[in-house]
Every structure is written in C-alpha cells, then in structure tokens.
C-alpha cells in the first residue's frame, strides 16, 4: 500500500481531528499524565487540610476548608526528636551546602573538561577513563574511605567536607559534559586564540567561557537538583546540626514519636521538593538537554 501523500510536499498531512489513532494517542497520554500528576495533587490538597478532615475523608477528596497552618508548622515548628525548629534549618543548611558545592564543582569540572578537550596531555585519557568508570561504582564502596580521608584532614562532619564530597562525585558527569561541549567547539577557534597570544587561562576565560554559557546553565541545573536532592552524603558526612533538608524531612516524617500529622508531613515534603521543581519548570528544555547530554553521550 503506497501512500500517495508521500510524493507531495513535506509536512504533516491533513488528518481528521478525531481519527481513531488520535483518540488512542491522546487518550493514553492524558491518562498517563493524570497518573503522573496525581501524587502532586494529593500532596498539595493534603497539605492544606486540617487533621480532622484527613481522618474523615480520603486522600483524593478536595479540601473543604483550606488552612495554611500545616505549612507554617512544617517550616518552623515540626520536630525531629527533641528538636522542634521545623524544616527551616534544613532549608538553610541545604542552601549553605548547595551554593558553594555548585560553584566549586562546576568551576573545577569545566576547567578539567577544557584541559581534556583542548590541551590533551599524556595520560589525560587514562585518568578520564578512570573517572568515568568511577561514576558507575556504587557510592557505598567509597563511603568509608572518604570518611577516613576527611577525618585525616579534619573536615569530617563539616560543611566544607560535604562540599568536597559533592565536588568529587559531581566530577565524572560534569567533566564529561564540559569535555564533550568544548570538543564540539571548532578547534580552529582555539588555535586562532593561541596565535593571538592567549594562554591556558586566557583562552578559558575570554573565549571558551563566554561561548559556553548554555552548557554552564545545564551543568548548574544538573548540580542544583542533584545536590539539593542528595540524602546519602548529607547523612554520612555531616553532623546533625548541618543536616540538609532531605535528611531533616525524612527525620520529621518518619519520626516515631508523637501523633502523625499527615498534613504537616506533606507540606514539609512539598517544601523540600520546591527548589528542584522550580528549577525544573523554569529551565524546561535545558533540563532535558542536561540529563540527556549527561546520559546518552556517556
């Protein structure tokens, strides 16, 4: 069966709007989309209900009476053990971890990627291969040796230690990302800059960096979500007073003491998810590009 339309001009063929095919495609996608949205919906409505209402109704029922008290409570009063300062402390801890970690990890990885892409030197590929393999090694294998390393230099339990850990574990994927991007920049530009007299740092700051802003944004998205969402490193390498938001959230929700306040728990959960969600919705296509570049090209 030869489709006549093929010999015609390019572009989508005029189709009936309600063909069986379309109903199937859109129907499936809408059902799936609703399924994906359901947890978000439940989180939000639960967080604005009062506890009596939660005990009576079901999780999907829209709130009869909207209250923001659970949010206030989650932010400033929720307890982990004996400590009742709410999530706010975790939030500020996460911010204090996030900002330097993102800056340091991207700065180091971008220079690494640049050195690998443009200044190939003997042995560089060997280290790079090890680095990429390292990305697949389960963190659990390296958890304890890093504890020891950090203890040796007196950084175990400190914020600086955690920042170093994030830099180390962000390095494989970020270096790959930057190396691939810098490799895709025409080599002649790099050579022209060398003839013009720019050196290693001159070319990096004056030529490569200004040309590569999109990839820096991609790396930032990748790191902000990754570091904000981290739980394992936070719990292993910091003291309780520095615990990031995810750890604190888990401690609040899964704390065995007291009556479970589901509305407060959900408010806390949304609060914790808010930063990566905002980054995701603002960055849109760049987010997709980031995760795809990080993954597929590997």
């Amino acid at each position, binding site marked *: 069966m030869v489709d006549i339309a093929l010999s015609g001009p390019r572009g989508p063929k005029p189709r009936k709007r309600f063909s069986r095919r379309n109903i199937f495609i859109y129907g499936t996608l809408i059902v799936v989309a609703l399924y994906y949205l359901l947890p978000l919906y439940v989180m939000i409505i639960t967080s604005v209900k009062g506890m009596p209402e939660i005990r009576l109704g079901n999780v999907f029922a829209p709130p009869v009476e909207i209250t923001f008290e659970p949010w206030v409570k989650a932010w400033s009063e929720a307890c982990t053990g004996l400590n009742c300062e709410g999530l706010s402390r975790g939030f500020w801890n996460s911010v204090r971890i996030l900002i330097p970690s993102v800056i340091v990890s991207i700065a180091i990885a971008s220079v690494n990627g640049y050195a690998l892409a443009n200044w190939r030197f003997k042995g560089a590929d060997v280290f790079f291969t090890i680095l990429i393999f390292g990305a697949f090694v389960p963190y659990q294998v390296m958890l304890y040796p890093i504890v020891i390393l950090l203890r040796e230099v007196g950084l175990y339990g400190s914020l600086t230690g955690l920042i170093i850990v994030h830099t180390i574990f962000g390095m494989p994927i970020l270096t790959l990302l930057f190396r691939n991007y810098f490799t895709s920049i025409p080599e002649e530009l790099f050579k022209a800059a060398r*003839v013009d007299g720019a050196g290693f740092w001159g070319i990096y700051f004056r030529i490569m960096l200004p040309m590569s802003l999109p990839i820096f944004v991609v790396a930032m998205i990748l790191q902000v979500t990754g570091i904000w969402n981290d739980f394992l490193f936070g719990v292993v390498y910091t003291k309780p007073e520095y615990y990031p938001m995810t750890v604190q959230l888990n401690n609040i929700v899964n704390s065995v003491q007291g009556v479970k306040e589901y509305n407060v728990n959900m408010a806390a959960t949304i609060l914790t998810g808010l930063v990566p969600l905002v980054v995701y919705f603002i960055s849109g296509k760049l987010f997709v590009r980031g995760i795809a570049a990080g993954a597929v090209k590997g």
Partner: protein
Amino acid sequence: MASVTIRELKKAYGTTQVMHGVDLDINDGEFVVFVGPSGCGKSTLLRMIAGLEEITDGTVAIGDSVVNDVAPSKRGVAMVFQTYALYPHMTVYKNMSFGLKQAKTPADEIDRRVKAAAEVLQITDYLSRSPRNLSGGQRQRVAIGRAIVRDPEVFLFDEPLSNLDAGLRVQTRLEIARLHERLGSTMIYVTHDQVEAMTLADKIVVLRDGRVEQVGSPIHLYEQPDNTFVAQFIGSPKMNFFEGSDIVGNASTDITGIRPEHLRETDAANAMVSGKLELIEQLGEYALVHLTTSSGAEFIAKMEHPPSVGKGDTLHFNASQQLIHKFDKQSGQRRT
C-alpha cells in the same frame, strides 16, 4: 618581514610518521603555496610553522632565529583559518583587536591599527557587528583583517577560500594577491586547489605523504614537472600518461606524458597516438574529448573545435617534441 627556513622537519604522532624530513627556504616577501592532496601534510606543515603543532624533529626558523619552542603568538605570524575561526561572542572590532590586547598594545594604537585594516578591507561599516550577522565573504575579510592588525612578519593561510562559493572565491583570490602586493609580507598559503596555487604563488611547494615532491615557480612546475605525481597534480585536466606501444617512440621502461592541451589532431600517417572516441564534454570555449587507446588506456584531448565524428571512431594526435615529457616507469622520475 622575514624569511622562513625549514630544516629536516619531522612530525610523528606516536609511531606514525607524517612528515619525513622537509627542507624548505622561503624568502622574505615571497608568496609560497603548499599544495597537495588531502593528507599530504601541508596543513600540518603550516601549523608547525605557526607553532600550533609540536615539532618532533628538525627546525623551523623565522628570520634568523629558530622558533621551535617559541609560543605561536611570539613568532610574528598571523593565521587565517579555513572556517575563519572568528570568536562568535565578540564584535568584529573586538575580534580584530583581541590579539593586540593580549600583547598589551596601548588602546589608541589598537584603535588606529584596527581602523586602518578595516579601511583596507572595506569592512569599516561592520566593525560593531557580530560575526553571525555577516556573510561568508565578509567573515573572510574580518579573518584577514584580524591577521593584518597584528602586522606579522609572516602570514599563514590555511585553505582560506574553501568555504566560499565559486564566484566569491575568485574575487577573494584576487584580493589576497593585491594584499600581498601592497603589504609585501611573506605569505604562506595552503590549498588543495591547483588553480589557486598557480594563480597566487611566487613559488609552489608540492607535497605528498609528508614529503616535498617539487619546489618551483608555477610555470616551472607546469613545464618541467620532476615526476609523474607533480605532472598530474599541476594542470587541469591532468596530464595524459602513455605506456608501452600506445604511443610512438616510447621505450618500454618509460612513461610518456602529454598534456591534453598539447595534443594536436592529425592524420593516421603523422599520428603519435590514436584513440577511439568515447565522450565529448562541450564547454563552449573548448571541448574535452575522452578517448581510449587500443590497449584500453584512457586519455583526454583538449580541442578548440569538437571533432565531427561519432562515438567509436578513431582520432589521431601528435604533439610538438618540447611539450612531451618522459618519465621513468619504475621511479616516476623525469628523464632529462
């Protein structure tokens, strides 16, 4: 301005040797073209002169000093790249001034030089534009401008015209020739296009597989090619080679070469070489006639008027004695 002297220059990537000891003298103010098929090492040689490629062995000297370990920017060279290599995030003005800024030239001096170069190349109007808003030809001018402002002793061109369309290529070629006349600097130019080589060069260097095949003026290479490779590389359509009994008076150890434009139609009695007509390419001004000899070898004759015979008919040709080239069949070297 300066001469360039290359001695025993070798280049290897790991165990693969790509340059096998090149010797070359380029005089002050000379326009030298490196030509050869892709992979012959011409771009590598240029980049070694520029300092962008490490030298495995041998020396490169610009003027009186060996520059093997001198940074590219300190060699007094400027380079124009095939893809122009303009910095996309800088305006034309910034592109042209970047090198001078790196060298910490005073701002008013930079401004004077950039404006002067822009004047010469007629790109003054574009100085504040970004490269992406320029046409291919305009970008090429900016790339040349960026080289001029550095006031280099040696200009290096790496296939600068191959990204331009045919019409612009001819025009830009003429401009480069004019530029050379005006500046009088030493210029080294890499191309795979023998027409560019013939029209621009004071001296052509033919390279193959990392070796120099012949050095000489365009007309010398055309008239006295040292070997079969140069003979076929210079001139278009390329030189016909005849072996064995295809041509009258050919020793069995020889190859006889005659350029298509030197074959004259004659009768069977005076013929040096005869062939069956295969195809006529009519180009208006002249016609290219494709033929095969009785042994099946193909050759081309360039004729002012296409023969009025049909396909499969035999045509006869001869050529004047001084236009016949003899090469050793084994080595491909010219017989004197």
